[in-house]
Structures are given as C-alpha cells and as structure tokens.
C-alpha cells in the first residue's frame, strides 16, 4: 500500500477508513484496541475480551451473503497450523463478526516483500510444511480453503498458521465472479475456478504459486489487469527459468492447468519439495525412479524445462499493428480465424472473379470496400480508446497459444449468459462480421457459379452474393446489438424478422437492378393479400415479386433463432446441423410462398454458413476470463 501525499492540495486528512475506533465495543464482551488490517472479506481488529483474552475480530463486509449456520463445522476445527475461530456473532445492527485467534508476527506477504529475490530454503520448507499440514487437514475434513494466499498465512516465531478458513465458501457466487474481484486474489487462482470448479486441487495450485513466489520473490503470472492475469493462468505455461533446476518438476506439477494432472494433494506437494531439496543426488546419479504416484510421470520429471514447448517464446510485446487488429476476445490477430477467412476469402474472391473484375466485379467491390471502411472506422476508434488508456511505457504482453483444456466442462458460458459488452466493441464486431460475410457470400457464389447450373452468369452470381450478404447482415446486426443482454427471445426474433423484411426489400431492389427476375408463384393467400396491398395502396410495380421477397426473407429470419447461431458464445463456430435445418426451413418456406425452391434452399444454405463463419466466436477458455474479470472499461486502467 503506497500512499502519496499531495502537498499542493488543500490540507485534507483522511483517517484509515476503519469503521470502529479504539475502545469501541460493537460486540458485547469485547473491546477493540486497534485495527490490524483490511483483509479479504472485511476489517480485522485487535480486541480484548472483558477477561483480558486477546482476540482478532473480523468484521465481514456488508455485501457478503453469509450463512452463519454453514460456518459451524469450520468453527470447531482445531489444528496447530490453522487460526482457530472462536465464534461467529451477529449484532442487532446486522453486522457479522468472526471472533478468532490473534496471531502476532507477520503475514507471509510481508515476509515475501522483505525478501525480493526469494526466501532462504529452510524457511521456504518450514512455511510450505506448515501450510500443507493445515490445509491438508482441512481437505481431510472435506473442506476446501478456496482463498489460499500469502495474505492469509501468518508466521510468528516459526509457527505457521493459515487463516480465513472456510470463509470463501460462503460468499455468494455473484460476488466472486463480479468485477469486484481484486487483483490480489487472481494471482493464486487455479484455472478451473473460472469454470466454477472448486475442488481441493485449487488449494494445491495456490500453494504452488505461493511456493514459486517464496523461491523467486515474484508470482508466476502477472499483468496489468485482472483479465490479463487470468488469461495467463488459463493458457500460459509458467516460466520456471528463475526456479532452481531441482524444483522445476515439482512446480510444474503443482501449477498444472488440468486439475486431474496436478499434484494430488497438499502433503504430496510438500513431500515432493522436501525430496527435491534433499534429492539432488538422485538426479545426478540417474537412479531409477522410485515407485508410487508421486513419480508416476517417470522421466518427465527430470526433463529440463527449456526443452518443452513453453509459453515464453510467445510472450513478447505486441506492436501497434497487432494491437489494432486484436479482436475483442483477446486472441492475437493471427489466432482469430475470422481474419484468416478475410484474407483467404479475399484471395478466393480475386481468383474467381479476376477475369470479370473489370466488368461485373464493380458493384461488389464498393460494397465490400464500404463495409471495410466502416469496420476500420470502428476498429480505429477502439484502438484509439485503448491506446489512450494504456499506461505509458508498459508494453502489454501477449499470452501464448491456447492449450486444449479438454477436461473442463463449460456450463455457464452459453449464448443466454448475461454479459456486458461496450457499444464500441459491439460495433467493431458487427462491422467486422459484416465485412467478412461479404467475402464468404462471394466465395459461395463463386463456387456455385462454377459447379451448378442455377447461376447462369455473372449477374446471377452477383445477385446471389448480395442476397446472401443482406440476409447474413440481418442476422448479425441485431444479434450483436443484443448479445449478452437480458432480452427476451421473442424480442430478438421479431427484431431479426423485421430486419429480414428490410433485407428482402434490398434484395428485391437488387433483383430489379440486375434484372435477375426470379420467377415467383402466386398461389399463397397471404402473398396475394400482400401483393394487392403493395400494388393498390403503395403503387409498387412488380408487387408480386416484392411481396415474395419480403415474405420469404422476413419469414426466413423469423423462423430460426439466428441470434443463437451467430452468438460469440455459441457451442461451435460452424454447426452443420444448424446449416442443415436452416436450409430445410428455407426450402419449406420457399415451397409455401412459392418462391423458387432451388434459390430458396441455396440462399438459406449460404446465408447460414456465411453468417456463422463471419461471426466472432470466442473459445470456451477465453469466455471464462470475460466472465470472471468482467469487461473492464479501458478508462479504469489497471488496479
């Protein structure tokens, strides 16, 4: 905590903002003598009972959803390495107090801060053993600590005690996953926590991070913001080069992303470390590995870190261009397949239409260019905003290639999940998708032109492209604007349907302009009604055709949940099932309205595929980062 005093500002004194003063008695039977610190879940005071017992009183924060009943089995735990909880009380004012053992001495983060390049090995070992024993005992009792960090570990004359036991469990989920997550706890957070998994392995991971920090003085994953740190926890291999060679294997296992492959328990981690401290000779003599689960991975334990594919080769600062191209999901620009689609599709476009570019490519290019310009505009604005808020001189580092976290099951990162996106991001993603969809549409048209008899010539191909594009846009736009918000499905459907009607109108115009003149039937009663209305009330020429386009595309966008198909958090980037069903819907709708079926079917196919391919898709592991870290406003900057 560094406080700076501005001598130029008017004299302002702010007391340490503790709620209670020395000598106050908010809790019957105890007198507060002084404040100790502001801890993870509330303020901690040093107090004396009326009989003179020294205790620590923790006042839990107001916004915590504390169930006093649930704490009862944590109350009666006794272990030399755990800070005892004496009682939990609630005052008439509604405050929750935890009465616990007072421990003098220092917290582990103070100890680590006093040793910037690491603690002496003996001390590391004793602290590690103490934490492992205390939290190991908790695990045997079926309790996971969930908030293990140096700020919760105390040392007094060689005694190690872990505090804040069991409190994490009783904080409501929304509090934990909200923006209020402080940077401090994220350093020790196991990757699977982002997916809502709180097994005992999370404590092992945290102890691994603490061990790393004790040995080197630094945490393995650091960053400017909670989101960045979290991203690294999820995807980046820890840099173990600062760790003495004999400990690298131990740390590697403790910091495994996959909880199933991580060191199995606290005691095991402590044992492995102790063995590594003493066992230098084992490595040098190359004796056969001893049996047992701790060494189940065999040779891997002794493999030098540098030989493995590590994250460090990817960990370089991004330059301005890369930051510009970076999509909202936080991937590097070359990791986002949409950018490759754009490039690939661009090549395809040029390849197919090259001979005719002079003639007919003309209406296509302005459209694509226009889309590109808008997209660039949004991207530029976003980039400017991000650049302005970036702290000077601190180049952001880029997380390495994501590793498959295939054992993690994502339950709560689906299209229906509430998320917050900035308008600027929505705009950037929407326009980006719209631009890419043009390319996809053109590619389709090109393929059809070459392989099918449906498209008789260039004009038809252009028309097909336009139709597909407009249909895709009418799906992308409303979906992106309402993504992550609590909108009703029916609202989304109707909005998409209305845009579909508008798209239908645009396509009708294209039909007129390009003189494609698709043959429409006229047997469908509503179609007849609409035709009449259009020709008599609005005096529209070729009303029958317009009515057919309006009804087809309006209905087409209405019957399927397009917002789901193009949502950034959909299950798969491209779902052929979706495409198949949409195509079928297109055919059925065509039959009903008496729209030409081949056209209807193929347009359905191409628009579904284009919309999906063009839309942003965030990989499941990155969704977790967004959920936990929240979408931090660039103006807030780092914590």
């Amino acid at each position, binding site marked *: 905590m560094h*406080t700076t005093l501005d001598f130029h500002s008017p004299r302002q*004194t*702010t007391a*340490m903002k503790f709620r209670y003063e020395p000598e106050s008695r908010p809790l019957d039977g105890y007198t507060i*003598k*002084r404040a100790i610190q502001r801890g993870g879940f509330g303020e901690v005071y040093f107090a004396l009972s*009326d009989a003179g017992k020294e205790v620590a009183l923790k006042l839990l924060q107001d916004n915590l959803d504390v169930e006093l009943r649930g704490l009862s089995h944590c109350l009666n735990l006794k272990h030399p390495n755990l800070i005892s909880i004496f009682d939990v009380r609630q005052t008439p004012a509604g405050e929750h107090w935890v009465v616990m053992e*007072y421990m003098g001495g220092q917290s582990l983060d103070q100890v680590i801060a006093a040793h910037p390049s690491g603690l002496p090995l003996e001390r590391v070992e004793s602290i590690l053993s103490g934490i492992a024993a205390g939290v190991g005992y908790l695990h045997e009792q079926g309790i996971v600590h969930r908030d293990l960090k140096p700020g919760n570990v105390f040392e007094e004359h060689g005694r190690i005690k872990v505090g804040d036991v069991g409190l994490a469990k009783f904080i409501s989920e929304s509090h934990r996953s909200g923006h209020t997550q402080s940077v401090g706890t994220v350093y020790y957070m196991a990757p699977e926590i982002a997916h809502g998994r709180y097994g005992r392995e999370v404590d092992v991971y945290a102890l691994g991070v603490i061990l790393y920090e004790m040995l080197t003085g630094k945490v393995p994953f650091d960053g400017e913001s909670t989101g960045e740190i979290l991203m690294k926890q999820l995807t980046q291999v820890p840099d173990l080069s600062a760790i003495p060679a004999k400990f690298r294997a131990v740390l590697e296992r403790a910091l495994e992303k996959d909880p199933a492959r991580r060191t199995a328990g606290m005691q095991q981690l402590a044992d492995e470390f102790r063995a590594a401290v003493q066992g230098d000779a084992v490595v040098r003599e190359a004796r056969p590995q001893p049996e047992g689960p701790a060494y189940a991975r065999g040779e891997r334990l002794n493999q030098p870190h540098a030989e493995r594919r590590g994250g460090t080769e990817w960990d370089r600062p991004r330059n301005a261009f890369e930051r510009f191209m970076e999509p909202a999901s936080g991937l590097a620009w070359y990791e986002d397949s949409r950018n490759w689609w754009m490039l690939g599709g661009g090549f395809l476009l040029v390849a197919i239409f090259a001979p005719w570019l002079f003639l007919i490519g003309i209406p296509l290019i302005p459209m694509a260019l226009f889309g590109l310009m808008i997209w660039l505009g949004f991207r530029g604005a976003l980039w400017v905003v991000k650049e302005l808020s970036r702290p000077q001189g601190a180049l952001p580092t880029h997380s390495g290639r994501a590793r498959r976290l295939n054992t993690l099951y994502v339950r709560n990162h689906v299209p229906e999940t509430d998320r917050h996106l900035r308008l600027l991001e929505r705009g950037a993603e929407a326009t980006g998708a719209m631009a890419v969809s043009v390319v996809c549409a053109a590619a389709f048209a090109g393929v059809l032109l070459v392989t099918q008899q449906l498209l008789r010539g260039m004009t038809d191909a252009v028309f097909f492209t336009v139709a597909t594009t407009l249909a895709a846009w009418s799906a992308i736009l409303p979906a992106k604007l309402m993504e992550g918000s609590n909108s009703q499905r029916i609202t989304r459907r109707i909005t998409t349907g209305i845009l579909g009607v508008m798209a239908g109108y645009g396509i009708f115009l294209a039909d007129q302009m390009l003189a494609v003149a698709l043959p429409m039937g006229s047997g469908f009663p509503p179609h007849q009604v609409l035709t009449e209305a259009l020709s008599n009330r609005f005096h529209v020429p070729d009303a029958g055709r317009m009515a057919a386009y309006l009804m087809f595309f309006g209905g087409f966008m209405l019957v399927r949940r397009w917002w789901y198909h193009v949502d950034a958090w959909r299950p798969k980037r491209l779902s052929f099932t979706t495409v198949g069903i949409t195509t079928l819907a297109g055919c059925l709708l065509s039959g009903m309205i008496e729209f030409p079926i081949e056209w209807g079917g193929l347009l359905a196919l191409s628009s579904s595929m284009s919309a999906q391919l063009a839309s942003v898709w965030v990989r499941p592991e990155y969704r977790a980062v967004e959920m936990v870290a929240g979408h931090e406003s660039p103006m807030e900057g780092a914590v």
Partner: protein
Amino acid sequence: MFPSLLSSSPRSGLTAGRWLVWVDGVGAWLVIVQSKLTIGRASADSPLLRMRSNPSGHSSSGQDDEADLALTGNLSRMHVSIRRDDESFVLTPHANVSVDGRRVSRDVLLSDRSELMLNDSVRLLFELTTPLSLSARLTVLSDHRPKLSIQGAVLMAGTCLLGPGVENHIRCPAWSGSVVLAQTGSGLSVKSRLPLRSDGRELSGLTSLRDGQIVEGPELRFRMEQVRSRQVDRTGS
C-alpha cells in the same frame, strides 16, 4: 532536542510516566516517559479480580507490583531494570541477566544493538534507532509474549519517532510521513508535518496529548492510553 523536564518527584496517585500507544495497522507500543523501565514476569493474578474492583472493566492498568514490560516466561517479577542517566542507559540486573553473552552482576551501560538474555531463555534487543534522538527501543526476540501482545517498549529521552523508515522507534511502513511524540512537562505532545486531526479539529504545531486521545491522519490512526499505577514511582535504583 527538548529539555527533559522530568518530573522525578513522585506524585501521589497518578504518574504520566507510562503510555500505551495503539497504532492501527502496526501494533501496540509501550512508551516510557519516566526515567526507568522495569522488565519482569507477567502477573499471574487473574484480571477478573481487577475487573471487579475496577467497574470500567477494560482498562489496561498494570498490576501494582508488576513490571512495566511484563512478559510470559521464566522470569522474576522484577527481573531487570533499565534507567536513563542523562545521555546513556544503564541496566541493573535483579536476577540472571546476560548482556551480549556475558553474565552481568551489576550496573552496565547499554549500547546500540545490545542483546539481553534473561534466565538463559528470554532474549531482548536494545537499540538506538537514530542519532537524531536519544530514545531507545526494546523488542522481544525470543518467543515470549509481552502482555497485550505489545510489539515492544520505547524508553524516551525527549522524543519518540513514528514513521515508515527504519530510523523510527515505532516503524509504521504504510505511513506517508513521520509523527513525533515529544516529552513536554510531565506529559506527551504530538507534532508532525502530516496533517493530523483529533477530536474533530486539525492539529497544528505541538499539541499535548491526554489519556484516551485518538489522533488521525492520512492513512494513519493511533490512540494514546495512559498506564496508571496506584503505586508511587520508586526512584531508587
């Protein structure tokens, strides 16, 4: 720095010789203004008895014949005393005491970073933290708890410094500046460059402190508590 207008004449009733400073985020410190500090075993008598005779209950007053710095441990009730003699500090052993490894049987002068060993188990460190002040600091090195878990004692010779740097008697790492407690008359006053407030008003210059006063500043707060003794201050050696 300040002329030490020591009141060495015993008063009946209260002396302002001993204070407890409760510092938020740091700890409790015993500040000795009088010229002598005694160290010994914490009283075994139950504080409950004291409570009955003292209805306000939670005062931290010392037992009548308990030492100023009372520790748990194998010590005599009055094991050793340290007194200030003009500019130096003199240690008087009343029981088994070693200074820097050598057993002492009579008065010795203490120097900076002297290590005291009582009964071969309790270890204390005597320090003069800064040349700017003649005050000394005493902390417990071994695993023996002082009463009220205080961090240590400051034997004042005019001033006591509180602040983030290592030269301060009471080290407060999170503070943005220093606060000085100064001996004035028979009491203590406070002064600092930091803007301080107490009792709702800003403090300026040198302000005298009274028992129970809470002083607040930027990210700091501490409370002064006078340690009362019904016993007349013995000025013998």
